[in-house]
């Protein structure tokens, strides 16, 4: 499978219909790379004409801004917008809700105006258009699953249905956690917490959430964010439950169930 960059596309006079914004976690983190590859596979199989920025992509500035470092954020935003506008990017899809939120909501005022969608929304679209066909005997069929709402997808942008609709297509038994949708509990990574030790308390946030996921006794936990994925995997591993409950990104599940 060939993954083209915008630079290559431009050089050969092509204009992709959509830019896949991979994000830092998706690019460098070993676990998140699997999500990236799964999503790229889906795009490829569904015949989507897409490209990535490759080495020209840089951090959106989200963790810096949430930590309070507006200068760092503005510098990153400036550079990224220069690149994106330079390629006349119109539409972006990303597998990271943090990148999604910042590109969609916080870049426009700085001169970066794009149609930004999250990969779960794009997957829903592709399924509805028939571009993704799920095999009847997919390996998830009949298994139980609980979906963990990412804060930056859910409350931040009110996307609760798209990921659930995609999961429905897999014919699984969806078990909701008590705190779900607008009441969903954070995994503990947001607001740049991912990059520091937690403040002192009686429990780690990811353990609180992992316990809630384990309580549903589901075979799988679906995530739609590379950071939630890490936090929940760590939590479940900590409880020695990783044999019973595996954390997977929705894209990974679809990639394996596609015809």
């Amino acid at each position: 499978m060939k993954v083209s960059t915008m630079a290559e596309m431009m050089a050969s006079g092509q204009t992709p219909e959509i830019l896949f914004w991979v994000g830092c976690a998706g690019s460098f983190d070993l676990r998140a790379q699997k999500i990236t590859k799964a999503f790229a596979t889906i795009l490829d199989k569904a015949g989507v004409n897409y490209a990535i920025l490759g080495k020209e992509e840089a951090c959106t500035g989200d963790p810096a801004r949430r930590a309070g470092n507006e200068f760092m954020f503005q510098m990153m935003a400036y550079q990224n917008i220069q690149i994106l506008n330079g390629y006349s990017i119109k539409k972006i899809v990303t597998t990271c809700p943090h990148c999604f939120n910042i590109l969609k909501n916080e870049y426009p005022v700085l001169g970066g105006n794009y149609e930004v969608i999250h990969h779960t929304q794009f997957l829903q679209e592709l399924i509805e258009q028939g571009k993704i066909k799920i095999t009847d005997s997919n390996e998830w069929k009949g298994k139980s699953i609980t979906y963990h709402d990412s804060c930056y997808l859910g409350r931040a942008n009110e996307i609760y249905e798209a990921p659930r609709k995609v999961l429905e297509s897999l014919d699984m038994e969806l078990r909701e956690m008590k705190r779900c949708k607008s009441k969903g509990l954070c995994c503990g990574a947001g607001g740049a917490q991912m990059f520091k030790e937690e403040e002192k308390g009686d429990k780690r946030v990811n353990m609180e959430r992992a316990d809630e996921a384990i309580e549903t006794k589901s075979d799988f936990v679906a995530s739609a964010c590379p950071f939630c994925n890490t936090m929940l995997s760590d939590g479940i591993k900590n409880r020695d439950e990783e044999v019973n409950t595996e954390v997977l990104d929705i894209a990974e599940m679809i990639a394996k169930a596609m015809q």
Partner: protein
Amino acid sequence: MAIIAQILFIILTATALYLFSKNLLKIRRNILIGKAGFVNDQKARRWKNVFLLALGQKKMFKKPIVAILHIILYVGFIIINIELLEIMADGILGTHRIFESYFEQFELAALYNFIINSFEILAALVFVACIIFLARRNMLKLKRFMSNDLAGWPRSDANYILIAEIILMGLFLMMNAADTETHFIISSSLQPLLSSINTDTLFIIEHTAWWLHIIGIYIFMNYLPYSKHLHIILAFPNTYYAPLTPKGMMHNMPDVQNEVLYAMQPELAPTDAAAPASFGAKDVMDLSSKNLMDAYSCTECGRCTAACPANITGKLLSPRKIMMATRDRLEEVGKNMDLHKNFVPDNKSLLHDYITVEELRACTTCNACVEECPISISPLDIIMELRRSLVMEESNAPQEWNSMFSNIENNFAPWKFAPDDRDAWTKQA
């Protein structure tokens, strides 16, 4: 004799209204020391929020039983206060149930009875709801009411309001019961209890209840500006000015945006560009007026804190406490302004003296607090503004964050990976 009562009533009413408006204006002044923050676009959507959230109490219905009790208090409070019109007219003119005689003149006595009966039913419901709320607050040991956030005055404040409502409703019903010429739905059932009392004494009881009721209302009204109960007024403007943007959106800092722009493209920099005074918020005057109105609107119900992942897992952060601390500091700054006309620095600030670094550092920006608030308060916005000040003014960040900043700067990712490896995954795909 009657004229003395009338004069006394007018003086009392005028004093109550004067003090009340004086305190409201003070609150308005305090709110306006914040930076511009009231956005007034898309009026239709804003009014919709007022109707759904403030008037319709939509978010309260996440807990239906509490919502019903709360709406009884609220509807009762507003509707029963219509009776104040008659009480005021009687007080000023020295009459007794002046509207009743008017209604009778137009053969609408039945309507008058219907109205007062409705008031009485509501009064009885409010009476009961307040007792349930008092019991729930003090006996059920709900975590959000037992929390240390409420230690001292805030806990008493909540109880005082409920007790005051119970007394006021009691007086209202007592006043009607002692008026033997009337037979309203609830108070008439109290009348047998008073049957052994002679007419003169009943007259005194009725008048005493009437006076205590109106004095109670004036005291309650003037208590509002000092109380969490101010939300009955501020919930309306607060939901009107609630942000209409997605919750995930942080507001931009044009000052910083321009600094970066001029660094990248020096040709755009104006020659006389003055450096911005400060970044983020260290004290209440650095926050937006909306943030400050949020603080005055907060009812300290603690739904935010109960949903906060940091608080749930035992961290120091409590979004409710953020709002209470902001109001406390703002009140202090207000008193400072009363004394000196303009604010005179007092070597204190919201950051550090009222809200600690540890609290701010615990926030995951998950928006659960914002989502929970029934009247659209954002503790998160205040937390982020204080974080901005911490990092940009004081360079106060944990070591791991400083590493993250330098990784972003040098490696274009929050981790120390070679930027050239960003697309390494494509080779394995």
